């Protein structure tokens, strides 16, 4: 009986692992197959090897709006978002921890409420705001918005981290003549790399996959990020699967590799209290 239970448990664990991994393996495998082979061997076991799909996906169906440009746009969005997020999030979080109890709790509550504001409520106003400021189809403007949308979560995670920061170090720094801001830049930040990396990665994962805001805000194909572009790919290639799989693997593989390398930091970020929607 006990053996049977243990056996069932291992079957369950392996089955779920297969369910999780197989789609990604298939995406990568089918990306290297010709259209005919995909139809004949839908599980990727057979057929010849080709790089053609990647060329088509990279340049896009029209030759100018493919994954190449989507990746470049996503990179601009991600860099702007992370820069905004950390530049505003880290100092806010740190100086919140220095405030008196009551003010601190109030501010934290504001940020908590902001984290549950659903994106669906923000879509139309953002469209209006972007339209008004000329930011439609501008990846940097979207990056700035993402950085701000992710701000409450970042502040909450970092506040949790900074509130455990040892006083003694801070006091020692002020005895040495550093101002509060100097202490933050030269003592606190260098000692908080793990938490900063963890929050940035969580924000990066959010930014890399977000489409609800990006679909209406980036309607020009040359301005689109990876998720927006991929969503449009399906219609553009009219049942041609090879380039779609190539596009999917180009979109998914970088972020998965980043995750596999840094997964300890990400787990830490989650343990500190946050994930982006």
């Amino acid at each position, binding site marked *: 009986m006990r053996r049977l239970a243990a056996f069932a448990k291992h079957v369950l664990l392996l089955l779920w692992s297969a369910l999780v991994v197989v789609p990604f393996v298939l995406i990568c495998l089918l990306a290297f197959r010709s259209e005919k082979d995909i139809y004949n061997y839908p599980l990727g076991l057979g057929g010849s090897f080709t790089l053609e799909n990647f060329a088509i996906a990279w340049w896009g169906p029209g030759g100018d709006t493919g994954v190449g440009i989507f990746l470049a746009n996503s990179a601009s969005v991600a860099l702007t978002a992370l820069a905004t997020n950390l530049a505003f999030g880290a100092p806010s979080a740190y100086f919140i921890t220095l405030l008196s109890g009551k003010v601190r709790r109030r501010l934290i509550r504001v940020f908590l409420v*902001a984290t*549950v504001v*659903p994106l669906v409520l923000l879509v139309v106003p953002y469209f209006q705001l972007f339209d008004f400021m000329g930011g439609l189809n501008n990846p940097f403007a979207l990056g700035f918005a993402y950085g701000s949308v992710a701000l409450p979560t970042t502040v909450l995670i970092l506040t949790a981290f900074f509130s455990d920061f040892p006083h003694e170090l801070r006091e020692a720094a002020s005895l040495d003549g550093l101002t509060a801001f100097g202490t933050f830049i030269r003592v606190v930040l260098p000692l908080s790399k793990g938490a900063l990396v963890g929050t940035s990665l969580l924000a990066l994962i959010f930014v890399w996959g977000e489409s609800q805001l990006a679909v209406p805000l980036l309607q020009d194909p040359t301005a689109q990020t990876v998720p927006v572009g991929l969503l449009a790919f399906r219609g553009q290639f009219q049942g041609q699967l090879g380039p779609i799989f190539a596009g999917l693997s180009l979109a998914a593989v970088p972020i998965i590799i980043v995750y596999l390398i840094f997964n300890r930091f990400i787990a830490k970020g989650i343990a500190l209290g946050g994930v982006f929607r």
Partner: protein
Amino acid sequence: MALVGLFFVVPIVQAVTVSLSGWPGVGPVEIEGLGNYAAVLASPEFYHSLLRTVVFAVVVAFGIVSIATLLAAAVSRRVRGARIYRVIWFIPGIAPAAAVAVYWNTAFQPEIGTVNAIAGLLGLNTNSALLASPSTALYPVILVSIWSGVGFAFILILGGMEQIPVSVYEAASIDGASPARQFFSLTLPLLRPILSITATLNLIWAFNNFTTVWGMTNGGPGLATTTLPVLVYRTAFIDGQFGEGSAIAVIAGAILLVLGFVSLRITQSRGVS
């Protein structure tokens, strides 16, 4: 604080303003009153969509929490390879939701899709087209949403399980409780706070999920999988009815904020936040 104001407070005020207007997408916003709300509340599409969204969110949240609890229970007793499982099970949540949705859309296609190909290996029918029929299209979307959400729920629940002291289980074993009995009479009750937080979070996320639904079905066929976020997008950006779209968004937002506050209450009462 200014950024939070600019990107949260102003938009919400703006969303309410637009929802009270007939804004066509350009030009100034002129407040006209509650007409959009009346139109939304009188439209059968809205109720259809609301019902779909609630069914979708409840089934997805329940599925995610059940599977994640089962997996966490299996891993928590120091199984070989536990660290690897922990890492790889999170991958579906890391991969861009749009990519995941587009892949699963192909996977459910007749004959050539992965799902049907595997069904063929098992000797089953290979030309099912679940996504093409209005009566079945929601099922694949539910399955995929569960599939991508389990990883995160698993990490939360496992974290909760690992905080239960081993001595509790030792005492139970001495009293002769079987592992199954221990799971139902000890683990589950002790985990209740974590389970309810995880369920509420997933309920909110599923309610709010745009990418998976849009990427797999564009809300179709017909309106079969049009959940509220998709309906907002369709109404505002495809039909150009920004006022009505905003009214739906405000109603959906209100429902979600209530859910959010409930979940925050639960979280805070345990002092986790």
